[in-house]
């Protein structure tokens, strides 16, 4: 279980008043949940992910994973970045096994695990290729494989599909749901795409800016529906999906124009 308790993050610029990036955020993520944070730029969603990842200490409040307070980055929290952040001097498979190598796992074993993870993202045949020769979508899938290779309890994904074209984006969404279904991991995913948020999440958070905070929370059925039917198009065209999408768009429009939920 991941517990985020009264987390506030303030940035103090040298000039001007302090900027409250996150104010009093409370959130609990249970195993098997796919939580998506949705919001416009500046609502603090990346800040929230960075504090959970351990890259950014909260100004006040705390984050606990399985009862232990988060004090910095760690291998039990896998991160997929907006820009894949792969190592261009390593081949695809060497990138995926990089985390296992850092932990001192013997070569043969880590290679085997890395190839399994590559298979899950559909890139087993690209294992030996240099990463700089891959397309953006393939690079992002390598980033996902690298994050799952160390078997983290939590997957943190910071707008990982934002730079992909619509077709690639949909196929990577489906890969992510397949990986999620096959484990009891917690997923925390950030996006500004309403349809993506609805399709992936079991729980959807809507965030607002100034100060950054969670303003609404929804339970969402569509990702579970996908793991049962594997028919993404039918789900996204279903009346209840469209209705919920419009409802959320209205809500966001209202929030950003009035500044109140």
């Amino acid at each position, binding site marked *: 279980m991941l517990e985020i308790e009264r987390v506030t993050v303030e940035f103090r610029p040298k000039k001007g008043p302090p900027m409250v990036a996150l104010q009093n955020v409370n959130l609990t993520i249970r195993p098997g949940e796919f939580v998506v944070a949705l919001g416009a730029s500046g609502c603090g969603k990346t800040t929230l992910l960075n504090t959970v990842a351990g890259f950014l200490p909260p100004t006040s409040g705390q984050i606990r994973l399985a009862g232990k307070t988060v004090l910095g980055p*760690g291998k039990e929290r896998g*991160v997929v970045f*907006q820009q894949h952040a*792969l190592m261009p001097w390593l081949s695809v498979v060497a990138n995926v096994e*990089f985390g296992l190598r850092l932990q001192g796992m013997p070569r043969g074993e880590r290679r085997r695990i890395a190839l399994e993870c590559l298979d899950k993202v559909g890139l087993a045949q690209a294992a030996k290729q240099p990463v700089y020769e891959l397309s953006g979508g393939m690079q992002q899938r390598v980033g996902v494989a690298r994050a799952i290779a160390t078997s983290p309890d939590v997957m943190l994904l910071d707008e990982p599909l934002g730079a992909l074209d619509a077709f690639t984006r949909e196929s990577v969404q489906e890969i992510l749901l397949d990986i999620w279904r096959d484990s009891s991991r917690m997923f925390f995913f950030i996006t500004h795409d309403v349809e993506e948020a609805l399709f992936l999440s079991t729980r959807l958070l809507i965030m607002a800016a100034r100060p950054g905070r969670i303003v609404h929370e929804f339970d969402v059925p569509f990702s579970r529906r996908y793991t049962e039917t594997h028919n993404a198009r039918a789900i996204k065209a279903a009346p209840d999906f469209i209705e919920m999408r419009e409802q959320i768009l209205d809500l966001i429009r209202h929030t950003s124009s009035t500044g109140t939920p």
Partner: protein
Amino acid sequence: MTQHDISTKPLPDTARQAASPARLPSGSRYRTPGAGSTRAISAATVLAVFALWWFATHFAWIKPLFLPSPEVTFKAFTDAIHGNTQGQTPLLDHVLVSVTRVFCAFFLAVLTAVPIGIAMGTSRIVRGIFDPLIEFYRPLPPLAYLPLIVIWLGIDEGAKVTLIYLACAAPLAMAAQAGVRGVPIEQINAAYALGGSRWQIITLVILPAALPEILTGMRIAIGFGWTTLVAAEMVAASVGLGQMVLNASNFLRTDIVVMGIILIGVLAYLFDALMRLLERRLTPWKGRM
């Protein structure tokens, strides 16, 4: 059929032709200004300079004292190979001694200045210590502190190698530091999130990520090394290309001076070509990610 149905009929050929834009002349395409190979043009430039040199000397536009003809210069080269110059030292010895000086100094600089640069990039304390020292001596002309080095170290090889070493070390340390500072924070965070220690991140992420900049720094540093060679060999040297040129100028042997200059230029060019090859082999991702 309702009017909302999307037709899947292929376009007829006439429509396709009408839709195609006016064609560019075959073979041409839009590129960034300045793109393309320069090899043929560069070869032509070199040939043109040689031709101009040949004409200028053969039609006596310039006196031989100021510019000897290509043949005379070439003869100075063959004579020097056989040691028929002042000092009787064969050219190969001059070359070997100079190359050894430059490369010893260069390798010492790589072995020391690159780790210092990386430490400067990754540690506030190390940067605080070395930054003022390097920034102070870096812009000084080597000739300015040459006397001091001679007083301290004498007139042996030590002083010459030290002078060239100092010229190489500053750009190497600067390049390594810049390379470290240029590593994207996401790459470092990614390694931390995978459970990496600080030392693992320096050796397995920062060092390879900074390698392109370090290699560029090495190219610049060896250039400074060649530049400083003549200065270093002004001090009581009896062999060396720089010494050969200096000595020849005392006897107004312009042919040997020109030959020596060309030789140093060609050696430096060959080494730079080797470094560029190394760059392509070691950092094939440069500029692609």
